[in-house]
Each structure stands twice: as C-alpha cells, then as structure tokens.
C-alpha cells in the first residue's frame, strides 16, 4: 500500500516537472510547479516527516509560489510566450541532469549517509516528528533559532532601505 502511494507520488512529481519545463506559458509552468510541490509533500508524509510536509506546502506551495507569480505578473507574459524557450541549451541541460543523477547515485548507492544510520539524526527520544523538532529547536538549537531573527531583521531592513529610497526619489 505504502509502496503504491510512493510510486503514485513519484510519478506525479516526474510528470508535473516534465510538463512544467515544456510549457511555453510561464503561468502554466508555475501552477504545475505547485502540483509537483504537493506531490513532494506527499512523499515527505510517507517518509514520516510530517513537519517537512507541512512546511513544504506552507512555504513552497504557498509563499514562494506567490512570489513567483508576482514576479511573472511584473513581467510581460505575452512577450515571454513568443520568445524561444531553450536558447540552444537543451544538450547542456541534459548533461547537467545526467551528472546530477550520477552524483545522487554515487552518494546514495555507495555508502549512503553512514552517519545517519550510525548515530541517528540528533533528534531526541520524543515520539512524533513535530514534537521532536520542537524539542531540539528550543534546546540544542536555541541559539541559531534566536540568531535567525537577527537575519530576518537585517533582511527586512535591507529590503525597506531599497524600496523606500525608490519612492522618495
């Protein structure tokens, strides 16, 4: 049963991604990307990573897609449809894809992630993925968690600085 769902989701990801890169219309491509993200969230659930599945939908399918659609809307979609899609780089792209595939095979096929098997992932004993994540986030990884707020603050101020001065001039 689980295997059947795995193949279903995997086929969904591959199909949606293939359709995405072959569409001429960028809006269609963006929506197909959402579909791929949703299937990927399904894979995460199957792997027992509920938190990652939720984040995948919230951040990628939600936040990042909206960002994509906004930037697409700022461009002129009509022009983009008539442009050539490949820029004669399909061979290069294929080579890169094969290289990446070989790399993944080398890492996972030979040895995999030995540390993960031998020492665990550093998560606590708490059952459930979300609880375990919450526990390490507020104990072991408290400092980076707090420092990330400085990162967000700096990023926010930077964005405001760039936008604000655009308006005043």
């Amino acid at each position, binding site marked *: 049963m689980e295997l059947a769902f795995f193949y279903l989701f995997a086929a969904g990801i591959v199909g949606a991604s293939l359709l995405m890169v072959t569409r001429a219309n960028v809006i269609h491509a963006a929506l197909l990307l959402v579909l791929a993200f949703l299937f990927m969230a399904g894979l995460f659930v199957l792997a027992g990573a509920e938190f990652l599945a939720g984040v995948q939908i919230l951040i990628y399918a939600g936040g990042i897609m909206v960002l994509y659609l906004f930037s697409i809307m700022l461009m002129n979609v009509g022009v983009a449809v008539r442009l050539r899609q490949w820029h004669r780089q399909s061979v290069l792209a294929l080579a890169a894809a094969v290289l990446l595939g070989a790399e993944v095979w080398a890492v996972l096929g030979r040895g995999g992630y030995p540390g993960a098997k031998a020492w665990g992932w*550093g998560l606590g004993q708490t059952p459930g993925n979300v609880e375990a994540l919450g526990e390490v986030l507020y104990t072991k990884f408290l400092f980076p968690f707090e420092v990330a707020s400085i990162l967000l603050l700096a990023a926010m101020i930077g964005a405001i600085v760039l936008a604000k001065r655009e308006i005043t001039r």
Partner: protein
Amino acid sequence: MTIPFPQIHWAYLLPVLLVVGGAVFVLMWDAFFPQRERSFLVTLTLAVLASALGASLAAQPGSEAASMGGMYLYDGFTRFVFALILLSSFFSVLLSAAQRSLEEVPAGDYLGLILFATSGMMLMAATRSLLMVFVGLEIFSLALYVLAGFLRGQPEGNEAALKYFLLGSFASGFLLYGMALIFGATGSVDLMEIAQRLTTSPPSRSPAFLLGLGFVVVGLGFKVAAAPFYMWTPDVYEGSPTAVTAFMSVGPKVAAFAAFFRLLLAVGPRAGAELDAILWVMAVLTMTAGNVSAIWQSNIKRMLAYSSIAHAGYILVALAAVRRGSDLATGSFLFYMLVYALMNMGAFCVVVAAGARGEERTRIEDYAGLGYTRPALAAAMALFMVSLAGIPPTGGFVAKFYLFSAAVKVGFVWLPVIAVLNSVVSVSYYLRLVVLMYMREPGEAPARPGLLGPGWSYALAALVLAAAGVLNFGIFPSSFFELALRSTLLLN
C-alpha cells in the same frame, strides 16, 4: 516536559549583544529623531564598536569556552578575530563619515546595516557549529548586498549590488548543500563531533562527506574571493561606495577565513588528504590571477580588488599549512589579517580622502603628482603600497615572512617559492602608483579638493591609526605576533 535553560556566559556574549543592540538603537534613533546631526549617529556607532572591542578584550577566554553546546565559542581565536572584525568595522565607519558621496544617504539605515553585518561576521567566526557559520554568513551577506547598492543613483552601484547578490546567493546554496551532505555523512553539524566521528569510523571515505566538503570549500572560497571563484570581486569592489568596498575587502574575509580555519583544524588532519591538492592549486591560482590581473588595471579600486584577491591567495598558503597540522600557520594568519586590515583600510582611506565632492578619484592616472599637491596624503599612500608589496620596514613584510615560513616548516617547498615570486610581481603595480605620485607632474587636479569637507577629521583619524599600526607592526612585530600565537593555543 521541562526545557532546561541553556548555559550562557553573558560576559562572552556581550560583544555580539552590544553590536546587535547598537544596530537596533541606531535604527530606532534615526526613526524617532531624524532631524539630528549625522555626526551624532556616527559617533554613537563608533562608540558601540569601541565598547564591543573593549568588552571582547576584557573577557578572558577561560576553560568554559563553549556556550550552548558549541553554538557559540569564545576562545583566544574568537577574541582575536573579534578584534579584527571590530577594527575593520570601526575603520569603515570612519571612512563612510569621510566620504563625500555618502553625505546624503540616510545615516541610520546605513550605519545600522554596517552594525548588522559586523554582528554576522562575529557570529560566523565564533562557533563550532556549521549551522551558525551559515546563519552568520547570511546575516553579513544580506547586509552587504544592500550596502553595495546604497548609492542608488549610480548604475555601477546597482550592477555591483545585483551581481553580488546573484552570485552570492548561488555560493550560499553551494555552502548549504555541502553542509547538508556533511550532516548526512556524519550525523552532526558540530565540528568537534564531526572530527570525533571521522576518527572512529570511515565516513571520511564516503562520497557524501567528500562531496559535502568540496561544496563547503566552494562556498567559502567564493566569500574569500579565491580563484576560481573571484570573478565577481573587481566589478563589485568598483561599483560599491569606497567605504563599503574597504569593509568588504577585510571584514567578510576575516570571518570566512576564520570559519575555514576552524573547519580545517577540525577535519583537515583526519579526513582531508584530498584537500591538500585542492588548497595548493587554489592558493597558486588565486595569488597568480590576482597579481597578474592587477598589473593591467587603470582603476584604483579594481587594482585594490585584485590585490585583495592576491592577498587571499597568500592566506590560502597558511590554510594549506594548517591542513598539514601546523600550529604556527594559524597564528601567522591572525597576524597577517591584522596587518592586512590596517594597510588595506589605509589605502582605501586615501582613495576616499583624495576624492572631491562631485567625483571620486578612482582612475590611477588621477594620482599623478599627488606628492606635490597633497604631500601628506601621498606619503601615507606610499607607505601603504610599500606595506602591501611586502617591503621592510613595514608590517606587510613581517606578516608575509611569518606566513610563508609557517608553510616552509611543514614541508611545502614550491608553494612558498611561488608566493614569494608573486610578491615580486606585485611590487610592480604597487610601486607604479608611488612612481606616478612622485615622478609625474600633476594633471589638472581640482584646486583644493577633498579633505576640507566636513568629514576630514574622520579621514585623518583613520589615516593616522592605519599608518601608525603598519609602521609599528613592521618595526616591533614580536609582541603582537606572540599574542596571535597565544590566541591559538586552546584551539582544537
């Protein structure tokens, strides 16, 4: 379930807290009292940086160096690197206050971002955790992307910011991917745990670990502008405001190299035999590409950009020596960075001070005859150039001497030889500027430009500080070199 409060040594954390608090305070002050004098905010920022420097010098690193399970690490190395980063921020604030083209920008935003960048660099250098390395790196990178394009009216500035942002985020991707692979191979992001696990079992041979290590080297190599990842440097350095360029050429390099050293000290001797060849080639490529390209430049900021690439190459020599287990190399790296910070900041300060209100003097030709029109400025520039070239009795010579001899002591033969040959090449373009300043008639220079602007006192302070340091480290280097060596004692 109870969550224990983590153990925090507040005295050790104080320098970072001061800088972050200062950044927020400067921003708030500017928001609530926008009509106040700009010089007030500059003084406040300088005071924040000076007090953070005082706090880090006062906090003696003890046996309890690691807070929060190694996320924040305060040892002698951290203390010295903090001093370097704060010094470079101090200089860049002085330069920003002196630069005429930055007079109109909103001071609170600008200074706040400088302080945020400083805090990111400090956090990146003061940790044993790859996670904190990444978060710190992102904090200062984001702040620097914005600072690079701060003068929005200039197309070069926009180009610099965009280029830096796109390539920088790509490099961050490499770094993060590499860290994830290392985590997968060893099950930890803590460098000490990673090192332990490398000795007890063979994940060091696993493809995941080696690939991850390679990606991390690429990401850090981009941030320190090592070949072949240095292509962005000249354009970004040329387009950014000069004070920001000065900051970029020192601060991020100190932080990224500090993280690089910690990584190699932990995993280098156990797992990185492959790294030997990579570091060797990177060092040779970086210094040769930097020095050879610098010869042909006609823009002084581009020339200094290539010169900073060459200096990154010299430091990579020390990294290769650290990989082989040299204790001397880390100390000479710290001392080299100290001298490099002073001479590079000094050179950029001359560029800032020579600029007039409307335009900056960025062409090398503009410096013809400076020895007659502005003797003091030209003398300072000559001193910094001689030091950058590594000629005694300046700090640059001593720093290079320590660095290369550390490499010789661990058995490198060709690497120091190539480095010395490169220094000889570099003399040609550094001294070309000196020759131009003293042996050519002045062109049609502006009548009384530059220094008489409102920021002259800041430029003067920076120049005097940098020149005194360069001379002091050239003539009496031993006490500071001892300090640098002692700072590395408790490492590992």
